[in-house]
């Protein structure tokens, strides 16, 4: 039987990877679209998650995670691509407009009276998918090591600590120019969307989770190339052959 401390450390580290993805989405969407709807979406996600965990319990490992990853990944990918594209156009057109204040042309943040369902939906599914993955890690590893409570402490601890770090960093994120923030969040959503959609199809990534930073580098490089091309096009220059 595996000892208590190794179980807590292992589930903590494995869950922290999933929690980072969850918190990245929530903080990114909150900073870009506004916090109220995003936090309500995240809270709704945790509510659904709690019900699923309580009702399913140990049977949780039988929930089909593949189709869920495919659906959430495909939705994040198509939505992320919209922000990716708009972010490139805005950064190419106005550079880092918005430093030290609100970019007057920017309207990505929700200002309407009701709920911003886009922010709600993005935060909700980010929390549900990643939270389910944390729950799977806890259930499978905890049951395998016969230390379910210790595994739950590791999993919940990871979500609380990574969430706390995200909360502490959210003020710094607010200082990022909005055009650039939309581009960054678009790149992140596209990266996670690509990764989950392909994983959901049952296709293995070379290097497993290590493919995420690889995708991130590819998409950041793509953004830089297209921003340069867009600027050259706006100036009436032809790109070098």
């Amino acid at each position, binding site marked *: 039987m595996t000892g208590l401390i190794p179980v807590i450390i292992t589930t903590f580290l494995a869950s922290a990877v999933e929690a980072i993805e969850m918190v990245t989405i929530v903080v990114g969407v909150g900073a870009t679209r506004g916090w109220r709807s995003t936090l309500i979406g995240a809270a709704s996600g945790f509510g659904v998650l709690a019900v699923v965990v309580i009702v399913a319990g140990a049977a949780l490992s039988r929930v089909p995670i593949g189709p869920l990853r495919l659906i959430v990944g495909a*939705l994040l*990918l198509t939505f992320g691509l919209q922000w990716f594209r708009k972010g490139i156009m805005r950064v190419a057109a106005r550079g880092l407009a918005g430093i030290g204040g609100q970019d007057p042309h920017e309207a990505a943040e929700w200002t309407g009276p009701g709920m911003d369902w886009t922010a709600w939906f993005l935060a909700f599914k980010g929390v549900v998918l990643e939270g389910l993955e944390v729950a799977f890690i806890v259930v499978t590893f905890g049951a395998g090591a016969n230390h379910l409570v210790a595994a739950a402490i590791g999993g919940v601890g990871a979500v609380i600590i990574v969430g706390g770090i995200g909360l502490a960093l959210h003020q710094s994120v607010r200082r990022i120019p909005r055009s650039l923030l939309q581009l960054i969040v678009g790149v992140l959503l*596209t990266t996670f969307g690509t990764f989950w959609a*392909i994983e959901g*199809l049952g*296709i293995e990534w070379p290097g497993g989770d290590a493919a995420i930073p690889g995708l991130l580098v590819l*998409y950041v490089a793509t953004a830089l190339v*297209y921003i340069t*091309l*867009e600027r050259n096009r706006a100036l009436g220059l032809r790109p070098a052959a």
Partner: protein
Amino acid sequence: MPPPFSWIVAVARFLYDFIVGDDWTVAAAVAIGLVVSAVLNVNHIAAWWLIPVIVVLMLGVSLRRASSKLR
């Protein structure tokens, strides 16, 4: 429009904006890419590279189209 229908229309409009947005060709290319990736995978051909390639290419096509419209 009576409430149930207006609600359905609002949800449909939200989903269209969320998934398709300004350029339907990007969403269509992603959908086709996922189907092709699944087919390649079923036939034991490496398919993880296809969606990243589609993302990079379709972004370029979509940006070019958007720039042309602005002129």
